[in-house]
Structure formats: C-alpha cells, structure tokens
C-alpha cells in the first residue's frame, strides 16, 4: 500500500548497490532531509534548541555505541567516559588556540586512543566480564577526570566552553548550532549506512556472530574488534564535543557519569541492536518520553484533583524510564527499529498479507 515494488528492476550493479535502491525510499529520505533542514522555520526556537539539537547529538552517540554493540557485538558499558574524554580534549585544545575544526578531531583522536584501552579488555574476555570491565573503566575515567584539576579544573568544577568558530565564523545562534549538530548526525548516519554494506561492516558482523567461525574464514577477530572500538570511540569523542559546544556550553564530569552510559545503552536497546533508524527512534524515545509521560501524569493528577507529592512527581520520570526499558525488553527485544520494520513489511503488501515472506 505504501508503494509498489513491482516494476523496479536493477539492470546494473551500481543501481543494485545504491544506498536506497527503491525510488519511494529516496523520495521519503529527501522529504525527511528537507524537513530537518527547514525545522528551524517550522518549529519554535525553544523546540529546536532544547529538543531537536540534543536529540541529534544523542543520535550520533547512540549510533557510535550501536556500532560496537549492535554490529561488532562487543559490550561497552563505559561509552559516556569516552564521550567525556573527547569533550574535555576538544574544550582544552580550543581554549589553547587550536582551530575548532582541528580540536574536535583531536578530541576524537584522544577518545580513540583511550577507547582502545577498553578494547584490550575485549581481547581477553567477553560477554559479562567485558561488560563489567568496561563499567569499571568508566569509574576509573570518571575519577581521573574529576580529580585531576588540569583536566576538569578541580573536584566539582565547571569548565566554560567558548563559542565555537567554524571556518573563522563565530557560531552562537541556536539555529546555527542546530545545523552543526544536524551535520554531524547526518555524517555519522551516512557512515553507518555505508558501513553496513562494506567489507569492514561485514567483517564486524562475522566477528559478532561467532569469532571462531570468523577466524576460520580469514577474518582476524582481534583486528576487527580493535577497529570497532577505535571507530566507535572516535564517533563518541566527537559526539561528546558536539554535545558540549552545541547544547551544554559548559562541561562538568557529571555530564559523562555512569548513568549517562546506561542511558545510552537504553537508547541502543530501545531503538534496536544494529538498526540505524532504530537509533534515531531510540534516542528520541529515551530523551523525550519520560518527560512527556511525566507531564501527562502530572496533568491527569491535576485534572482528577489527586494530590501527588512534589517529591513523588520529581522521581516519576525515572520510574517511567526504567519501566520503558523493562517493557521493551519483554515485549519487543529488538526495539523500535524492529517495530518499524514490522509495520513497514505489513503495509507494503497490505491487502494481500499472504504475499509476505
């Protein structure tokens, strides 16, 4: 019903391997792209600066984490630490007078260098033990960041991030920052779309499915695990820096604490492992749903005249957030991406359901 796939013939390899081989998909993507570009005109500036910009940055970070968990199958419970390393490096480099474009790459490279340390854990153990060791590394990195005053400026200090300068232009309007975040999110998405169909991505999937089997067919598991950690750390580091410059405007260790790592994991799981569109959905869901449901409950309580204590109300978003994680794992463990795929597959052949594979 959505569109017909009948009559779409790929007569050469280039057309067959195109990023979006179906014309209707290309139109949909173009429409979405136009919508995202025009968003500052369509939505209020509050919506753009407090919902859309953070959403885009979290999407990039979720995609980076999904690369390591969904594609390469390695656990990473310390992704926020990697983001923090990137953010602090970028802020320090930029303050020292390095151009912004170079300092953000420096941030990514520093995150890669330290993120590879996480990978050495992956080379020795896997499964639960890898999860626990990356979690412990998160605590160690947190401690180092907050206790070394050369990095954070002392325990409990906040480091102001200067307004970013891109190609010599000072960028400080909300709309311009939105476009910076959008550009980075699109870049990461494009990378992930291409990763899926490249040799690198296929090798990672082989390692995820069974590393022995991958080794048998000539894929070096060590090498691709290291590569996966390095790539996703780079994405994480740059995303952390973009998060600081486009949204928080100041950096503190708490922004990259262990609960942020868990929130990112929740975005990946709720979105769906190894699903790109799922990462977009998952980030939006975890970021926005607890707040929205919270205001809904508050509104219902007010409408019914029920008196919910202020403290109870303050903890409700976390209740909703935990319940969402539990609910998704019970109902649809493959997340929103899978739900979307189910809906799409259903609608594609709609009146003729028996034609579904």
């Amino acid at each position: 019903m959505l569109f017909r796939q009948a009559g779409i013939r790929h007569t050469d390899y280039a057309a067959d391997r195109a990023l979006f081989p179906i014309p209707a998909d290309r139109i949909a993507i173009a429409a979405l792209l136009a919508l995202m570009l025009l968003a500052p005109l369509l939505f209020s500036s509050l919506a753009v600066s407090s919902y859309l910009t953070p959403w885009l940055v979290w999407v990039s970070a979720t995609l980076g984490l999904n690369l390591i968990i969904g594609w390469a199958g390695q656990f990473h419970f310390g992704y926020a630490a990697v983001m923090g390393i990137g953010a602090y490096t970028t802020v320090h480099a930029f303050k020292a007078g390095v151009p912004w474009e170079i300092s953000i790459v420096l941030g990514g490279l520093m995150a890669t260098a330290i993120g590879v340390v996480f990978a050495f854990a992956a080379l020795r153990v896997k499964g639960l033990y890898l999860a626990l060791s990356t979690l412990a590394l998160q605590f160690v990195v947190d401690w180092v960041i907050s206790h070394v005053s050369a990095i954070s400026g002392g325990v409990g200090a906040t480091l102001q991030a200067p307004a970013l300068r891109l190609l010599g232009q000072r960028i400080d309007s909300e709309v311009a920052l939105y476009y910076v975040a959008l550009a980075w999110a699109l870049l990461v998405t494009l990378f992930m779309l291409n990763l899926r169909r490249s040799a690198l991505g296929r090798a990672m999937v082989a390692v995820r499915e069974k590393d022995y089997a991958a080794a048998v067919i000539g894929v070096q598991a060590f090498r691709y695990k290291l590569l996966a950690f390095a790539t996703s750390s780079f994405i994480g580091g740059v995303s952390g820096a973009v998060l600081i410059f486009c949204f928080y405007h100041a950096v503190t260790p708490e922004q990259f604490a262990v609960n942020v790592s868990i929130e990112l994991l929740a975005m990946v799981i709720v979105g769906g492992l190894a699903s790109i569109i799922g990462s977009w959905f998952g980030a939006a869901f975890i970021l926005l749903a607890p707040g929205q449901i919270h205001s809904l409950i508050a509104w219902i309580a007010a409408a019914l005249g029920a008196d919910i204590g202020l403290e109870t109300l303050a903890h409700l978003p976390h209740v909703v957030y935990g319940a969402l994680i539990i609910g998704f794992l019970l109902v649809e463990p493959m997340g929103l991406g899978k739900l979307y795929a189910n809906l799409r597959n259903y609608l594609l052949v709609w009146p003729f359901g028996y034609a579904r594979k």
Partner: protein
Amino acid sequence: MDLMYLLELAINGALSGLMYALVAMGIVLIYKSSSVPNLAQGALTMVGAYVVLAFADGAGAPMWLAIPLAMLTMMGLGMGIERVALRRLAGRPIVMILMMTLGLDIFLRAITLAVGGGTARPLNIGVSDAPLFVGPLLINRAYVVGAVVALALFGVFLLFFRTRRGVVLRAIADDYMASWAVGISVERGVALSWALSSLVATTAGVLWGSIQGVDQSLSLLLLKGITVAVLGGLDSLGGAVLAAIGLGVIEAVAAGILDPLLGGGTRDLVVAVMLILTIMIRPHGLFGRHDIERL
C-alpha cells in the same frame, strides 16, 4: 605510617568487607542458579531498607517484627521479579539480561524514592555508638555486628545447601539441563534463589542502613558487591566471603594510604581497579569454575 593505624584500618576493612559479602552473596545465589548477573542487587538492598522503615515507622511495628515482615515482603518481590521479568528472558543474549537488570535497578530505585522520599532517614537496630577498644585498636561496633550477621548467614546457607531443597539448588547450579531431565523444577529453584537473594539483600539493607542512614546511596553498594562476587568467582559463596574480607582490607588500607596523597575519594577507584585487575588476570575469580570462554 603508623603500623597500628594500618592494622586498625585492616581490621575495620575486613569487618566492613564481610558486610559487602552480604550484597555479593545475593549476586552469587542468583548467578549460580540461573546465570543471571543481577545488577539490580544494589537496588534490592535499598528497597529492603525502605521496606523495613515502612513497617517500623509507617506501620509502627517494633524492629524485631518489622525486619522479618520486610524479609517476607522482599522474598515475594524477588520471586515476582524473577517470574515477570527474567523468566521470559531465559536463553536470550546476555546483553538483554544485563539491560533488564539495569532497567530493574533504575525502576526499583526510582519507585522507592517516589514512594519513600529521598531524604536520608535513620534506621536504629539498637547497636550503640560507643567505641569498642580491643587493646589499643578502635573498632566500629556496627561493623562487628554486621560481620557476625554475614558470617552467620553464610553458615546458615552452608547448612541449607545440605538439605533436600539445597541439594536441588546445587543440582540446578551444576547443570540445569540434567536437573530438568531428572524432574527437578528448575523454575521453582530459580525463584527460590531469587527469594533467598532478596532476603540477603534486606539484611544488607538493614545493616548498612543502620550505619549510613537509609537513602539512595545504599544502591551504590552494587559496585562493591559485584567486585566481591567476581573476585570470589561468580558462583562460589565461600569465595564471596573470602574475597569480601580481602577487598575490605585492600580498600581500607589503600584508601587510608592514598587518600591523603590524592585528595580523597579513592575508595571507589580502588574497588574499580580491583575489578579490572581481577577480570584481566583471573576472570573466574578465586574459587569460580574455570569454564569462562576466553578468546
């Protein structure tokens, strides 16, 4: 540094370590029977303390009644969690199970705070604050009580595993497929282990709550509990007790030496580094089974 001071740190560390063993034993009990690494154990500890307070302060029950009532409630909660959340995830990839326990952790913590309030409340179990001197050493009375309770619980578990039901649990821990084949109800065994684990968590919550007050920080015992559990070998109760003493001593002494040098807050760092070292050097822990898959 003064040798007496170090000895004092070590003894108090060992005692408080035995109290970490309470959290660790809960993790081990569940991991043994169902291979679920329960990252919600810290939250269960916190909920346990809040339930005791709810019975004691809210319903006005005396402490000797409130604690057993809370234990019963918590056993029910543990079995409920197993039935609703984790039984359906059996056989799923470990990332889903880990995420489920993390989700439970967030949910339990938040709902407890929403109902019980976030301000720290005292929990008095009648241990006096008066200092206890053994020779020249100053020892924390509350730690002694906690350590004795932990050892007593460990003893009870040793005896329990000799009973018929305990043997069933051991069989499930050893090989659940074989247990199934000989007609053991694995589901009930796993539910029982969740109930026992919740009971241990309540004990831990009461003891730690009486020391540091009842608030959200009780759930932070998770990091220490999981470190002790991994160090002892995730499926060994005795290992958890020994590892707890070891970790307690190392943590207290290392923090005592490092804190003045590095400006405080090194306890968690020491614990995290111990966890990493354990996993890197000996992932199956001191007494765990050696069947961890290595690359």
